[in-house]
């Protein structure tokens, strides 16, 4: 079946602009995660959705970051007033409810803020 998909694959934007990153999880996966990976670094957890709700948004680095999920499927990560330090690869992963063993990752969106 189809894996996790993300769009766009690459996004170049100017400082101060808003960007929207999209994630389509595997069908039937109720849990969805967003991570950020800076060059040469490990993954930094941003936010988790169980269904359409995000129990804890404390992983988001600032109030410029927000995320939503609709219909227990597609999720959108929005970054407002982008800064150069937001440049990174943004990864989305999904998993079945209660199955923390294996998360299925998308290919990521590479965001470059000029």
């Amino acid at each position: 079946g189809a894996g996790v998909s993300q769009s766009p694959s690459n996004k170049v934007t100017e400082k101060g602009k808003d960007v929207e990153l999209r994630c389509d999880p595997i069908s039937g996966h109720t849990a969805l995660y967003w991570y950020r990976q800076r060059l040469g670094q490990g993954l930094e957890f941003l936010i988790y959705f169980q269904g359409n709700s995000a129990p804890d948004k404390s992983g988001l680095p600032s109030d410029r970051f927000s995320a939503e999920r609709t219909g227990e499927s597609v999720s959108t990560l929005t970054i407002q007033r982008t800064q150069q330090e937001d440049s990174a690869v943004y990864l989305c992963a999904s998993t079945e409810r209660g199955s923390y063993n294996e998360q299925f990752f998308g290919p990521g969106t590479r965001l470059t803020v000029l």
Partner: protein
Amino acid sequence: LAKTTQPISMDSYEGQEVNITCSHNNIATNDYITWYQQFPSQGPRFIIQGYKTKVTNEVASLFIPADRKSSTLSLPRVSLSDTAVYYCLVGDRFSGGYGGSQGNLIFGKGTKLSVKP
């Protein structure tokens, strides 16, 4: 939260067996050990998971000694396509995942494996 330590990088040649060791001295009773692989420009991919002794699948083997304070990922006869970053994660698979309270995975910097011809 069980912290993991693994080498930053390793070099190997095609056809060799590669062993990457991860230390996790404060692993808890309910913790499992999981390895992910990440190719350039891709998201991480689950490789293998184990609790104790030895686990083998079509990709790799995982060796875990009795004290579980370390684990070794073994890749048989590597090829150039095995060049990737390998991450060792430790955590409770039932209560909330690998150190993260929301089931999120906590990755370190991993081991960058370079396979040469």
